């Protein structure tokens, strides 16, 4: 019953960011193509012309170093540890500064800048030919962002736990006062109605962790100053792990009723035999749910970051196409739009964290409910 109600919301939430993405990619790739032609014809133009598509993609995707600023030809970035395992050379751990921003080969490893393995670290032989793809467990920008947010999470909530223990029954103060209403909201408005009075307590730690992890990452991702600003929740690997956690928690807590509804639902027999139509549909539904969670969060956050960078890159596009004065004029509009989008993103940060938690709670509720 609940899925039917939420499906519509789900669709809207998927479609909206998808439109954003298409829009952003359209602008991005369009300018990429526009800029590719002069690159081929006039080599000297490449240094000056601004590649908006590359700029946007670079800003929202993962990297082996934490780029902060570029002045002329000098890149200022924080090097991050590269952890590689290859069958030829075993474990290799070194800082990403050895690659000199991807320009150099170090210890027969290099960051591929084109071709099939673009953006990945590959192992090459002495003459620079591709040998193999090493196992790459590097602390990339996103992973570093995860660590930062984990530290922030731990600092905030261990502090709150401490004051909760000390003050006990007194009125909450400071940080505790700020976060307690949110915790209460998750408990009373999300977990209790979705899962039920009896069983919600078992899922509270996961729901709270997921909510605050997503919320903190969404918000930290909007702060463009090191050590924040890493696009963590806009990374599909991160949202995939979150979706998988929800999937496994649901599957591990599913009761008899839940599994019966999947493998042997109360439908006419010909829907189950000889072709197990309903079980297939139910099983695919089981997989779709976390998949939807993954895509929604990823797309929303990715779209937000993209649009902001697209608006900013508009300044440089106009600058390189029509000169500095037009660029300056456009910057006013671009900054205004960026500010608006960032404001919207703050709202979206809360909404997405809430939606993820609510849907997870509803899935848990469905997995543990006794009656249909």
């Amino acid at each position, binding site marked *: 019953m609940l899925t039917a109600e939420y499906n519509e919301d789900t669709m809207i939430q998927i479609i909206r960011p998808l439109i954003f993405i298409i829009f952003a990619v359209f602008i991005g790739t369009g300018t990429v193509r526009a800029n590719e032609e002069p690159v081929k014809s006039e080599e000297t133009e490449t240094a000056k012309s601004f590649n908006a598509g590359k700029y946007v993609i670079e800003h929202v995707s993962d990297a082996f170093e934490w780029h902060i600023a570029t002045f002329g030809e000098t890149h200022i970035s924080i090097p991050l540890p590269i952890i590689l395992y290859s069958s030829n050379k075993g474990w290799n751990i070194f800082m990403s500064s050895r690659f000199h921003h991807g320009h150099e080969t170090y210890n027969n490893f290099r960051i591929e800048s084109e071709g099939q393995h673009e953006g990945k670290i590959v192992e090459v032989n002495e003459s620079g030919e591709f040998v193999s793809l090493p196992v*790459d467990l590097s602390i990339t920008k996103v992973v570093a962002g995860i660590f930062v947010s984990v530290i922030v999470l731990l600092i905030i909530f261990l502090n709150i736990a401490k004051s909760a223990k000390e003050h006990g029954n007194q009125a909450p103060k400071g940080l505790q006062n700020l976060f307690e209403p949110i915790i209460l909201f998750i408990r009373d408005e999300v977990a209790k109605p979705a899962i039920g009075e009896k069983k919600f307590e078992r899922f509270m730690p996961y729901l709270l962790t997921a909510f605050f992890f997503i919320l903190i990452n969404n918000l930290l991702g909007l702060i463009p100053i090191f050590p924040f600003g890493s696009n963590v929740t806009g*990374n599909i690997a991160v949202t995939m792990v979150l979706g998988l956690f929800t999937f496994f928690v649901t599957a591990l807590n599913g009761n008899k009723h839940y599994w019966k509804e999947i493998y042997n639902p109360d439908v006419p027999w010909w829907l189950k035999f000889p072709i197990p139509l309903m079980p297939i549909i139910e099983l695919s539904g089981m997989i779709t749910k976390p998949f939807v969670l993954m895509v929604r969060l990823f797309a929303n956050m990715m779209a937000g970051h993209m649009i902001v960078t697209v608006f900013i890159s508009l300044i440089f596009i106009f600058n390189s196409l029509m000169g500095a004065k037009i660029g300056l004029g456009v910057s006013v509009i671009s900054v205004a739009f960026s500010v608006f989008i960032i404001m919207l993103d703050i709202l979206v940060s809360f909404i997405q964290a809430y939606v993820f938690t609510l849907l997870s709670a509803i899935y848990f509720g469905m997995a543990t409910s006794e009656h249909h």
Partner: protein
Amino acid sequence: MGFVTPDYGTIFWMVISFGIVMFILKKFAWAPILKALKDREISISEALNSAESARKEVAGLIASNDMIIAEAKKEKVIIIKEARDIKDNIIAEARVQANLEAQKGIEIARQQIIAEKDAAISDIKKQVAELSLMIAEIVIRKQLENPKDQEILVKDLLKDLKLK
């Protein structure tokens, strides 16, 4: 596009860090925070309940106070009424007593008056009798100066005796 294919390195670190952070927060943050919230809710509801019962108690006290006051008022009315009755009784009794006394006084006076009157009357009678005796003596002496008269008298007396 590179950014829609999940990177296994990121997945690896994400699983580890999310798992660890969930474990730590579950044990050291959510448990005490949720416990504190629950405890506070319980203590607040208890405090509210006890306040409610105290309020009821006070209301009961006020009601019983009112009852006591009402009773006292009733008693006061009764006492005042009793006192008034007693007063009225006393006054009435006193009046009756006074009447009685007055009656008695009057009676005594009347009796005295009667006695005085009787005495006076008997005195008068006595004096009248003496006076009449004196008069009769004088009259009789005057009548019996002549012997004929004496004879007539004796004859009359004898006549009376014969007749009897």
